[in-house]
């Protein structure tokens, strides 16, 4: 298992990371990367060779989820329990993995010491739900039956997955050659875009085709990953080029223009045929034509290829237009067209114009007035007016001030910040530099979740390139200002998204929030005035400076201006990353952009705002996206998680899901959050476990109000929202649970699996059942032993005649009622 610890290695790590209090988290991260856990010897060594107090080391090491104090297996298996994964069965996936690796009695590492399994809050690949990440390989669209395949695949391809270089390797750019764009957002990479790129490069090389491959940021159509787009340079195949740009940037293609060549859900084996289609060889027309037909046939047919379901469609399909039609791109401007790290392309598209204008002599007060006129409010959740925040920080006394970019996107079911940082690092940094200049900060920190390695890597590289280009650092943009930016990686604590907790974390402490006031704008990082802004807020800023306040303020409602980025996930057909104008209704988002719920199911609720937000029922989904309207309905705008739920989702279970998240993430500082959320969870567990009592609902509601009113920070003050909204809109479902019924058929303790008369006796279910709850009876009707059955849901989807149904545990009469 673990290698013996060489204390000199610890000394080296500390030597490289630093010896001050603020260096503790980087030190621990480095040790963990080396040993896969934090050895006791290392924890004892740190205070001996640093300024850090002994007590602090263990306190910090145990605060963050990223750190482990016990040795781990060779490979880390992260089972995502984000909201999207939860509604798509992550618990059953988790159980299947535990069975597959024979993990019992709370052990998390298999007997061979190969795999250590961890529950993680959200890996931000919600459109692939349910998701499991093994080391750096992401597996999506999983089901309990697929675990053997996953682990077999991982074992076989471990070398490929780990041996990959950066996705942004440089090569010679051919100005007159067509450009092939491949998405390299995390979702695309998880979908296999790196393998695809390798296959594409090989195919082009083989045929001697001159083409540029451009890695581009997230297109937002995460339900279609990986995507390949071919764009022709001006002059050559003119119409195609224009068509393409238009197709993905918003407006519909001009009449007559040939739409772009865009291929969705492409597998490496499709590359050959795509290349043949796009770059036909002379004299081989006949062969190519047949190949094209073949590709088109395959693309339009939704079929099953290999073990994991895949289907393809051409971008000409109406669905894509619907997905893009209602969107407005500001934070995600030039979506799908920019190589995330190509600074020249960014500049060609107007990048850094805003920064140069601001730093090049514009009075900060003028910029703040502009932001004020634009009506920009914080996109992190609470919607505080940005101009006011900047003004306070600017007016605060003191020479030293700090700018912090909040990229600690902790909401399970949300990945806006990840996508923005991965795809538009320059835009975020430009916005941050503008903000820093306005408040008078010469130092800044970008706090990014450790779960987003690609974002960390890209931002780090982008900072280096900006410094090299004179856009950061001393005399930046040719002016007199100086700004130094650096990255702080989080270590797995949702509460660090709260600005005072984030400040504590940057200082190297446990991420405990403190009471506001004083607000960080007056007293923040190391006691200095500090402005903390969300990633999306900063990404919007350069556009506002470039286009003026009017263009921004024209979008939206009276109090909510501009656009909002959402991660649209859950039971929706076209999930992805979208940017919409404020004021659009939730229904438009779900039905038009998202394509509604799966056929045969009905929209039940939209969860907006994650653990701090609420579940809004389908009946009120005409509500506009507006800070005040959403708050009025009991939810919050939040950072942009939007999880769609259908009639198979249990609202009590969802409330319990969020409470188990917030109570797990509570820092523990104040009584109401530490104990109050726990007691709320106890009641919800009882309801979902069939042990509810009539008085529970009133008790839950009272306690929820007490926690909301009495908690110290935003986490506790908003944690009851999912409970309060579900109680408000779905009370009858709670009452059913008190009576021992789960109308949605979700809560394991309240349901049973039964075989109906449709059974043809094929024995497939019996063979698949992991706990032998079904005896194989060839050609006879099967039966499920309810006592043995663990409700793992392995059998039901396998049945070829849909003879396995979920019923209420209560008497048949009860089950009829519940249907």
């Amino acid at each position, binding site marked *: 298992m673990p290698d013996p610890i060489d204390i000199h290695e610890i000394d080296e790590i500390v030597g490289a990371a630093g010896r001050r209090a603020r260096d503790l988290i980087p030190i621990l991260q480095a040790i963990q990367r080396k040993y896969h856990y934090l050895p*006791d010897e290392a*924890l*004892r060594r740190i*205070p001996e060779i640093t300024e850090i*107090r*002994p*007590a*602090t*080391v*263990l*306190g910090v090491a*145990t*605060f963050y989820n990223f750190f482990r104090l016990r040795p781990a297996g060779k490979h880390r298996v992260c089972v995502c329990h984000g909201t999207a994964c939860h509604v798509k069965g992550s618990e059953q996936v988790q159980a299947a993995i535990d069975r597959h690796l024979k993990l019992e009695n709370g052990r998390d590492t298999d007997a061979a010491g190969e795999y250590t399994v961890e529950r993680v809050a959200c890996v931000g690949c919600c459109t692939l739900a349910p998701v499991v990440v093994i080391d750096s390989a992401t597996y999506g669209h999983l089901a309990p039956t697929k675990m053997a395949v996953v682990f077999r695949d991982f074992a076989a391809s471990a070398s490929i997955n780990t041996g990959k270089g950066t996705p942004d390797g440089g090569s010679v750019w051919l100005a007159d050659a067509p450009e092939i764009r491949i998405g390299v957002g995390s979702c695309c990479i998880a979908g296999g875009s790196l393998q695809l790129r390798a296959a594409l490069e090989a195919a082009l090389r083989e045929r001697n085709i001159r083409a540029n491959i451009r890695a581009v940021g997230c297109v937002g159509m995460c339900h279609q990953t990986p995507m390949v787009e071919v764009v022709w340079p001006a002059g050559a195949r003119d119409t195609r080029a224009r068509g393409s740009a238009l197709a993905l940037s918003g407006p519909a293609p001009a009449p007559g223009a040939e739409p772009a060549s865009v291929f969705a859900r492409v597998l490496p084996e499709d590359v050959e045929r795509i290349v043949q289609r796009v770059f036909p060889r002379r004299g081989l027309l006949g062969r190519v034509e047949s190949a094209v037909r073949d590709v088109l046939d395959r693309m339009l047919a939704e079929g099953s290829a290999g073990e994991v379901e895949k289907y393809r469609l051409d971008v000409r399909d109406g669905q894509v237009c619907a997905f893009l039609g209602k969107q407005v791109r500001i934070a995600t401007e030039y979506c799908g067209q920019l190589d995330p790290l190509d600074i020249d392309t960014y500049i060609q598209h107007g990048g850094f114009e805003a920064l140069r204008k601001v730093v090049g002599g514009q009075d900060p007060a003028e910029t703040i007035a502009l932001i004020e006129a634009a009506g920009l409010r914080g996109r992190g959740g609470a919607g505080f007016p940005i101009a006011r925040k900047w003004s306070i920080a600017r007016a605060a006394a003191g020479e030293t001030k700090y700018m912090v970019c909040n990229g600690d996107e902790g909401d399970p079911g949300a990945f806006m910040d990840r996508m923005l940082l991965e795809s538009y690092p320059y835009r975020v940094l430009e916005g941050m530099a503008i903000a820093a200049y306005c408040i008078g900060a010469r130092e800044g920190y970008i706090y990014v979740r450790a779960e987003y390695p690609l974002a960390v890597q890209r931002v780090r590289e982008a900072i280096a390139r900006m410094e090299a280009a004179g856009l950061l650092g001393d005399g930046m943009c040719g002016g007199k200002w100086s700004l130094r930016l650096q990255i702080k990686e989080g270590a797995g*604590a949702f*509460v660090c998204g709260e600005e005072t907790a984030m400040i504590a974390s940057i200082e190297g402490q*446990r991420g405990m929030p*403190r*009471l506001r*006031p*004083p607000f960080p704008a007056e007293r923040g990082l190391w006691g200095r005035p500090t402005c903390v802004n969300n990633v999306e807020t900063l990404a919007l800023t350069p556009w506002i400076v470039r286009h003026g306040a009017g263009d921004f303020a024209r979008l939206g409602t009276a109090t909510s201006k501009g656009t909002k980025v959402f991660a649209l996930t859950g039971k929706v057909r076209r999930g992805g990353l979208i940017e919409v104008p404020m004021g659009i209704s939730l229904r438009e988002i779900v039905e038009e952009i998202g394509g509604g719920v799966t056929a045969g199911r009905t929209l039940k609720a939209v969860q907006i705002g994650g653990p701090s937000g609420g579940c809004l029922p389908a009946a009120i989904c005409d509500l506009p996206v507006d800070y005040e309207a959403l708050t009025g309905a009991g939810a919050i705008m939040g950072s942009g998680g939007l999880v769609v739920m259908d009639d198979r989702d249990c609202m009590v279970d969802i409330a319990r899901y969020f409470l188990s998240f917030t*109570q*797990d*993430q*509570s*820092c*523990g*500082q*104040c*009584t*109401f*959050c*530490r*104990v*109050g*959320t*726990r*007691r709320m*969870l*106890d*009641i919800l*567990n*009882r309801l979902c476990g069939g042990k509810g009592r009539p008085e529970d609902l009133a008790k839950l509601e009272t*306690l929820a109000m*007490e926690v*909301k*009113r*009495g*908690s*110290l920070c935003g986490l506790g*003050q908003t944690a009851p929202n999912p409970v309060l909204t579900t109680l408000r809109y779905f009370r009858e479902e709670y009452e059913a649970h008190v009576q021992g019924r789960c109308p949605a058929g979700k809560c394991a303790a309240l349901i049973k699996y039964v075989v109906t008369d449709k059974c043809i006796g094929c024995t497939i279910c019996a063979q698949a059942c992991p706990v032998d709850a079904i005896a194989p009876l060839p050609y006879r009707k099967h039966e499920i032993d309810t006592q043995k059955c663990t409700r793992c849901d392995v059998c039901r989807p396998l049945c070829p005649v849909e003879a396995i149904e979920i019923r209420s545990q209560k008497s048949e009469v009860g089950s009829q009622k519940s249907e």
Partner: protein
Amino acid sequence: MNLHKLTIDGRAVEVAAGATILQAAHKLGIEIPTLCHLPGLPPGASCMVCVVEVAGVHRLVPACAYPAGAGLAVQTDTPAVRAARRAAVELLMSEHVGDCEGLCQRGCPAHLNIPLMIRQIAAGRHAEALATVRRDIALPSVLGRICPAPCEKVCRRAKLDRPISICLLKRFAGDHGAEDVRDGTASATRIWRDDLRVVREPARAKGTDGTEPVPPDDKAHLPPASGRRVAVVGAGPAGLAATFYLRRRGHACDLFDDQPAPGGALREHVPAERLPRDVLDREIEHIRRLGVNFHKGVRIGRDRTLANLRQTYDAVILAVGTLDAAQAALLGAPMAARGLQADMHTYLTPLPGVFAIGGALRPLKMSVRACADGKECAFACDEFLKGAAVGGELRRFNCIIGKLTEEELREVSKQAVNRARVEPAAGLPGGFTAEEARAEAERCLHCDCRKADDCRLRDAVEYLGAEHHRFAEGERHPFELQIQANGLVFEPGKCIKCGLCVRVAQRHEEVPGISFIRRGFQMRISPPAGQTLAAALAEVAGEVIAACPTGALAGGSGE
């Protein structure tokens, strides 16, 4: 200096910039309760018991940390504030794993502090042990022979092997209380309050056992005469006890009985083999020595009327034993279903200044109940004589762990010597020798809290009127007990995560210090990796113990 003007509960106050609402309120003499704050330390904003309302803020804010900004309008006593404070304490109680008092003390009708008595016996402090018993039981040697010992039925040690011989130990204290054999060798068991005393403020220091010093029971040490006179009718255990405690409060007592000798049912119905008469006589004599006028052969209702007594005395206590309707009518006191009509807590009958206790009130099986009646009635009677509202003796709030698991029982037994129940060599009638008593006393598990009388959480439950079971949901934390080499005792289950200990230790550069580890509901305090709590705190342990608002960190060992 920059001054901020604000109002608290409508009263204007001016404080320096940087002051908190709590400090501003203090300046006005407005009390805001808090568990996690101590002056001189940075605010914790943890317990949230100090929440207040600030105009314009849509939530409650902790007064200990919220800046007393200029122009604030603060309310410290609104229904919302009271409800939130109560809820905060109820939530803290829902995860509190500890018994305030020992199960035995709770099981004793007289509420005798049995664990303290046992520790005193184990340490050879027999006189103190006797004083402890006499605080609640007027007839230690008598009850040490005849009490059915309900305390032993609930003794937690019974779950391990057999209960502590509490009754025999009490008898030992009664019989040998005068023979104080304290010496260095007999102090192996913890005398908790002794250790606590070192960390108390001098003003609060009490007797060696931490409680109010009890004077020897003789006339010379009684408080000055109150000038009030009480007639106690009936010299059975209830009447004797009432007399004893009234005399100790300085009230003159006349004790009436129709028999020639006091003792009531004890003399009439208990066989001499069980209760040798010399023992009874000795304990009655002890009470009489305090100055009691005994009127033998006088039956009220026959020889003197109740009305007459009421005219002569400031109060009358009826302890006449079981009586029927005819006897009650003769006595002239109103009758209820099972005995004389009286409030079961204050013992006041509908007749002003007349109390009824013991068998006269309801059928009694245990003399200890009669003794308890006498003690409690004396308290209520004392209130009456002082002209105060008669509320009766208050029983303090008690946190109760409930059933322990096997593992938890082993954890509790860390505090006890592993030894079979000691049987007196001289047989039951002979009772324990000093050696046997010490050996038996060392078996005690000491379930009671080291800070039962010193716990700010217990106080808060009482003054906020918290329902401590309101959130008794789900699983509780396991009972854990960490006894450190330097006598520091840490009980994680009693920790309210206020962080005072962490903040106190932080002030001292020279110690490694302690920190919270983990997060949320799993959070707890811990020494650094590879160190003990004792080493992590070193010489600041006393300061930390004093700061800890509950029994989570306490001094505990005399070793």
